[in-house]
Each structure stands twice: as C-alpha cells, then as structure tokens.
C-alpha cells in the first residue's frame, strides 16, 4: 500500500513532511553527493541577514552527552550574495525553498522580506527570532533598539509574547510567502508565545530552536565555546522538544513543524503524533548525511504496515 504523505504548511504543499533544519544543511549544495536532495519535502536554508555577518569567535562547536553545543552566530554573506550565489542551485531542485531570516531591527526585517518576496523560487520564510547566540536586545533596551521598535526588555524576541506579536505584526505584510515563526524553548510558557505568533499572522510555527547551554574545560577553567554559552541540539533535547510541540499543539490552530533531536523515523513519528504536521531534521545531518532519506523510508513502511492511508491521520493522534 502506498500512503499519501502530502501535508500543507501555509500555501506550501509538501510531498512529504520531511524538511531539513536551518543551519544544519548549509544551502543544500554541500549534501548533493551524499543524498537525493529532490526527495525532501522542503529545504530550510542557513539563516540569512540583510548584511553579511562574520559570526561568533571560535571555538564554535563542542560535543556534549548525546548532543552538541554550537554558537556559530549566524555567519552568512548577506541576502544579495545569497540570491546571486545560492538560489541558482536551490531552484533547480524543484523542492520548496524556505529561507530562514534574522535581523537586528524591524527595518532590517522589512528590507529583507521585501527583497526575498521578489524571488519566485522562494516558497516561504522562517522567521528566526530564537537563535540563542544572537542577543538582539539588552536590558534596558538601548535607544537604537527602542527607536527600531524593539521595546522588549531582555534576550530574544521569541522570549517575549508582546515583542513576538509586534515584530510579526509589523513585518508580515511585506511578504506574500508562507510565513513560519521559529520559537525558542528558553521560555516559561511556549504556548502563549506561539499564540502571539499565530494571532500576528504566522502561517505556521516551527519549534524548537536550540536550548541554551554551556560546557566548561576543567583543566583551563574556560568555557568550551568562544561565546561562553551556546545552543544545545541533538538526541539529548528530543524529550523537551516533543513536550513543547505537544503544548503548542494545544494552544494554536496553525500547522506545527517539529524540530529537536530527530535521529530516526521513530522519532519523527513521535513528533507527528504529538501534533506536528511536518518535521525538520537537524543535527542528524552531521551524523548521517542521508538521515532524511532513511527517515522518509521508515515513515512509509510504518504507514504501510499499520495500513494508514494518509499521514494526516496520525498527526496529533496522541491518546491520553
């Protein structure tokens, strides 16, 4: 039996629910000899900013128990170089391209969205307001940030429901593309942040970004990351991610994209049952570059074995 694997996220029709997570897959070209890129449901690019960013000091990655910490700091060449240098390869794949975006001010986000909106080969935007390695606001907010309209008092935009709402409300109209908001797990109540993102006009919620963490070298007494703290990812964070997907599924009606430590098809199915309409493969790409292909095959076999005709039947099917 061949089951229907199609799912919808905003205006994007995905042939299957498997996407690759931002920052773990470069701009896809890096993986071209290692897997069939065309099988992917969608590709989320490395986060793009309006201007080039150098990124954080070294070391930027460090391994932890069943996981890894990173503090890359959104290194990228800026949106113009992305369009000239990366889009030509991406658009040939015939896979929906979702561009992850970040910025330091509302104006920067607006400019970025306007530029990307003209790119026909881009299907969607994933708003990255949850990268733990970028502090966009200080306590108290600097005059520059206050003028920029960022009035929240601390940390990341996605750590504050009002800041999340006002940013999305302020920029949503500058793009006609599917608009996904990616949330941080470093919050008390992720449900209320998701709700704010939904009511401000997001088409979908993706979660979770990495969990803020730290590791120390006991010989030198120095932090193992140049940025002192960084984002934890990998199988270590899967239970947290799953719990948060479940919580968000109870608070919003828009589709949820589950991310966090998905290593195999069983993990992926768990996220679908918890309420995710689609999933993103992240750190697993580093361990096995063909993870996505294997996960898709596993999901197909699971559906077939259980005689499930449509994947939508298992989404949110948690029994309590």
């Amino acid at each position, binding site marked *: 039996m061949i089951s229907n694997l199609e799912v919808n996220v905003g205006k994007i029709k995905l042939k299957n629910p498997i996407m690759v997570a931002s920052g773990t897959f470069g701009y896809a070209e890096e993986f071209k000899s*290692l897997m069939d890129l065309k099988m992917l449901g969608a590709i989320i690019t490395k986060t793009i900013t309006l201007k080039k960013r150098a990124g954080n000091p070294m070391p930027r990655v460090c391994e932890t128990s069943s996981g890894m910490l990173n503090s890359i700091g959104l290194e990228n060449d800026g949106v113009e170089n992305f369009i000239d240098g990366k889009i030509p390869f991406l658009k040939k794949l015939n896979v929906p391209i979702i561009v992850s975006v970040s910025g330091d001010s509302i104006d920067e986000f607006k400019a970025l969205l306007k530029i990307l909106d003209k790119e026909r080969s881009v299907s969607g935007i994933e708003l990255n307001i949850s990268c733990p390695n970028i502090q966009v606001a200080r306590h108290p907010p600097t005059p520059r940030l206050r003028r920029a309209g960022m009035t929240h008092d601390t940390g990341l935009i996605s750590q504050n429901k009002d800041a999340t709402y006002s940013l999305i409300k302020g920029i949503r109209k500058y793009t006609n593309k599917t608009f996904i908001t990616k949330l941080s797990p470093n919050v008390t109540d992720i449900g209320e942040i998701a709700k704010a993102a939904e009511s401000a006009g997001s088409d979908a919620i993706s979660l979770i970004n990495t969990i803020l963490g730290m590791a120390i070298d006991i010989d030198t007494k120095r932090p193992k990351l140049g940025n002192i703290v960084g984002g934890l990812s990998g199988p270590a964070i899967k239970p947290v991610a799953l719990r948060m997907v479940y919580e968000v599924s109870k608070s919003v009606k828009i589709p949820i994209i589950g991310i966090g430590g998905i290593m195999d098809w069983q993990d992926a199915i768990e996220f679908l049952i918890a309420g995710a309409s689609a999933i993103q493969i992240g750190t697993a790409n580093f361990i096995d570059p063909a993870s996505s292909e294997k996960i898709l095959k596993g999901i197909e076999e699971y559906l077939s074995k259980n005689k499930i005709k449509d994947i939508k039947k298992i989404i949110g099917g948690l029994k309590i």
Partner: protein
Amino acid sequence: MKDIKTKIISNEIVAPGYYKMVLEAPYITKTAIPGQFIQVRCSDSYEPLLRRPFGIHRITNHESRITILYEVVGKGTTILSKRRKGERLDVLGPLGNGFTLQDTRHKTQDTRILIAGGVGIAPLTFVAEALVKKKIKPIVLIGAKTKKAIVCSDDLKKMGLKVHIATDDGTLGHKGFVTDLFRDLLPVACGLQPVTVYSCGPKLMLKKVSEICKKEKINCQVSLEETFGCGIGACLGCSCKIKDRRNKFTYKLTCKDGPIFKGEEVIWE
C-alpha cells in the same frame, strides 16, 4: 565525497596509546590526495554523537585500502581502538583540500621538508609517499614528547628518507623542539634551492614553523585542526581566521577550504 560502509581490515596498536587502522575503501583511494581527511562514525550509538576526523595516513594494497594512524585521546578514539577486524565502519570522505605537492613556482628539484608534531606525522606520511613516487625525497623532521610517541619513523626510513627526531625529554634524538631541528637545517637546505615545507601538529608548533618560513621566505603549507560539527562545510562550526588581500581577515572553513592553508595567511590566536 561519499558516505561509505568500509570494512576494517586491521586495527593494531603500534605504540602505547597509538593505533593504526586499515580500511577497505576503494572509493576513497581513487580520488584522495595527501592532506585530505575522513570523518569516521566511531560507533552506531549517539554517545559520542559526532564523527571524528582523521587525516589519511597511507594508501596501500594496490590502492584499495586506506590507513589511519590515531592517538587515543577521548571517547571517540577509545571506542575506535576497540573496533575489530571484519567490522563495518561508516566513513565520510575524502574531505578537505589537501596539500599542493607540485608548486608551480619552483622546479621539482627543490627541497621539501616535512615537519610533524606528535601524531601530526599521520597525514605527512601520505605526503612523503606521494613525493617519493614523484622521485622527490623529502627531509622528515618529527617532534614528540617522548621516544614512545615517535610512531612511524621506520616506515619513512623504509622509503629511503632521512628522518630527524626531537623529543621533549631527550629519550630519542635531539632534546628539545622539532622547530630547533628545522632552524639547524635551514642554512644547509636553503643553500641553493628553494624550499617547501609541509607541516602538521599542535597549533603552537605550526605557528612557530610558519614564522620561521615567513622570515626565510619559504613556501609553507600547514594542516589545521578544529572541532568539526559536520566536516563538509555545512555547519560553519570550524571557521578560522585567514588574511585577506586588504590585510584584514576573513573566516574560512577548516573542513572545506582547508585543512591545508599557507602558513603566512593564517592568523594565529
């Protein structure tokens, strides 16, 4: 570059804490050049999670097998040292740029010097082998903490090469740093011909080698090491500072743009 299941042909201890593993990997041997590396998944479990990078040490058996030479330093290499003959090992490669052996600025008769620190001799043995095939005999300088950590001087001597050794404790060869040997060699080596240096080892040693080469106007290629997330240029976790044309710096990826860089272009921190 491909991700392949290789077969372990052997995995033997060569000195206390040092192992040589031979893998059947014809795909990798077909294209690999000296200085390139492979990313090895030491076990199928998620502990440790990330792959481990190893420079290709040798290519043997009618070019169908690769050898890696490694020191047991942590979780990954401990697990690797316990893997047995006949088992399958997940290997991603060949990766990185590799050394430039044919320097277009010089004729092939120039003097080549290999400078290794500790297990840094691993990829340099592949360089030596490739040079010998081109009928060039490099001078080999190896430095290590102690005699027991000098692991493949015999292999190099068998290729007909002169091997000079320095140990920190003086248990073998010169007592002191390998860079002392390099300095002593300079007046002789630089006498007539141009010199090219290939170096791999601890960062401090590479820095010193690069400084000497810059002063003496010697072409120098160093192999850098960083912690890798992916090893294929996707995660941007292994950036290193490289001088650009305006004498400022630009971040390059150790795994993809490197691991081999010109000594003079690296910004040492």
